């Protein structure tokens, strides 16, 4: 790290630069999800009834548990960030590993969910079956469902890898040396969590009462 840190005046200058860089990156990430979210809104406008029927086929139990898992992982990530700033290397490492573990739990549960959806013929490009009257709208819904959750899972995977990498590097580096990297990984992790916070109601909860 020292090789390219030379052009920063101080550690705090480096932190501020990394922090702004990550926020700008998160802005691009939000725009990246934009067409999917807007495509969803347009689809719901066109196929309200089919979207509701399709949403009721999602696994709300796993979805809810997964939301709680992610929110909890965010807590541990916030604790990791707090630990790294007070130079507690081992604490940071433990929190990062717990965060990553919860991320893995999320992915495993999501995997089971995908499996059952595949068995129920809810994958729009592989023998999709749905009530004929609602088939087109439901296909639209599940296309976006897989696109959004898949993209989210990809982001989460990257977050898990980053958390593990920095946790392992804390075995040789001090918390102080990796403070910027851990802080920035945290911002990314919370952002991925925030995306899920919106995906959960729009995918799992559409007219659940019906």
């Amino acid at each position, binding site marked *: 790290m020292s090789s390219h840190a030379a052009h920063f005046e101080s550690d705090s200058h480096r932190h501020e*630069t990394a922090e702004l860089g990550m926020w700008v990156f998160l802005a691009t990430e939000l725009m990246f999800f934009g067409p999917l979210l807007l495509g969803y809104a347009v689809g719901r406008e066109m196929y309200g009834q089919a979207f509701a029927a399709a949403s009721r086929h999602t696994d709300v139990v796993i979805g809810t548990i997964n939301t709680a898992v992610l929110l909890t992982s965010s807590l541990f990530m916030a604790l990791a960030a707090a630990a790294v700033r007070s130079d507690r290397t081992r604490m940071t490492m433990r929190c990062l590993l717990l965060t990553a573990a919860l991320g893995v739990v999320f992915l495993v549960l999501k995997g089971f969910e995908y499996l059952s959806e595949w068995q129920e013929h809810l994958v729009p490009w592989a023998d999709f079956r749905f009530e004929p009257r609602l088939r087109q709208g439901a296909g639209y819904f599940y296309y976006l469902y897989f696109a959004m959750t898949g993209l989210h899972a990809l982001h989460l995977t990257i977050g898990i890898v980053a958390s593990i990498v920095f946790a392992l590097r804390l075995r040789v580096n001090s918390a102080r040396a990796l403070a910027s990297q851990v802080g920035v990984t945290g911002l990314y992790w919370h952002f991925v969590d925030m995306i899920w916070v919106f995906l959960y109601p729009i995918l799992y909860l559409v007219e659940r009462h019906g």
Partner: protein
Amino acid sequence: MSSHPSRAFHENSYLHGGFTLWSWLTTRDHKRIALLYMISITGFFFLGGAAATIIRIELLTPQGDLVDAHTYNELFTAHGIIMVWFFLIPSIPNTLGNFLIPLMIGAREVAFPRLNLASWYIYTLGGLFVLATLLFGGVDTGWTFYTPFATLFSNSNVVLAIVGVFVVGFSSILTGLNFIVTVHRMRAPGMTWFKLPLFVWANYATSIILVLATPVLAMTLCLIAFERITRIGIFDPSLGGDPLLFQHFFWFYSHPAVYIMVLPAMGVASEIIPCFARNRIFGYRFMTYAILGIAIIGFLVWGHHMFVSGQSMYASVVFSLLSFLVAIPSAIKVFNWTATLYKGSILFASPMLYALGFVGLFTIGGLTGLFLAAAALDVHLTDTYFVIAHFHYIMVGGTVMAYLGGLHFWWPKIVGRMYPETWGRIAAVVIFVGFNLTFFPQYIAGAMGMPRRYHVYSPEYQLLNVFSSTGAGMLAIGYLLPLVYLVWAMFRGKHAPANPWQATGLEWQTASPPPKENFETIPENIPSPYDYRSRTRS
């Protein structure tokens, strides 16, 4: 200021720290990365130009005698994709911007040097995909990838081309991110926002567009590719989707993309014109507001590409109105450049010729844009050569002229040697005349109703097309000239002093070429920008 750089300083220049290819390919020096980009985009510029040359030769006659319809489609698609994403968008920001922004703000580096290098590799990877597309037989959708043609009907290498554009988009995003953070966090002490050169302001605004608009294109291209592969999607009407949704997403990026191209060009003009008019730039603050205004309002006008697509009439009215609004900040800039000339002592050096050419051509392109922003008139002009002429005035007359002007202006700084001034002026004039000869007849042909994207046309348009093709030949010569003499100057030109133009700006306070760390010591006492009245030409 000494006119001959000391020998010791020259040895320390960024060009002398390692000559091996490896030292260039692993560099994190923003100045070297700028040169890597310059080489890449020059290659793509001439590749895109070759496609344009074949198009113009084909259009010499009304019949399709040189290429068939399918090949013609592939040619204009290749021309569009290469010129837009592999030349125009990276042109000024990634070469001149990369080289100059840290120098202009008094920094030793950009904020994220490794990311900067990664961005060039990503660009190169995207470029390889596009070259592969061309090798495997091209793509025929036009650069806009309109669905359902791109997803359902086209039999060409759509996915490969989309992957190329998708990948190069991330290069844009990372560069934009780097510039934003650099301008915010790396300015020298005392370099306040309103002391920044307008070139920095322009690239900053461009970066905002790059980071906010490009991701939307990236996702949209993913959806198009996925829809083409799986036959499932949200854009195809036969699948229950809406092709207009694609157009909304696409133009949400691609209209601001025009401002990605032209804002940095405005920045270049704003540096050159005060220098060669020996005058303070007129209305500096208004120039900065206009830059930001263009960047923001530019996001709100995309629907003017969709007036005849079947979008809501009410939406068209709103988009039309918003499009007229962009004319206001653009006009402020043109007026301020003109006012800067007033009572100046003007020197018609090559950079100035390019910059003045830019102002004139941009004005014509901008004003004809107002024709197209008028929804009713646009119904007649949509998909005619009028549109082609309009955006070439902005992108080629505007951006390419300014890019060349900037190359001449900063060439002494970049390579440490002067270019041959006479040749510079000759090329500027040849390009200006060739450009107008190429594209002005297209306005007339378009207004008469000649449609774009056909390789055959009705014989009444032939005279105009012969003019146009002749101009294109002249333009080709005009573009080859700087390629030859700028490269020649790199090795044989006479040594340049630190500040050959007696210009303001921190980049002129360091040696030509600059040392690896940009400055021996970071400048203090930052002067106010464009303080030319207090200086006299030597």
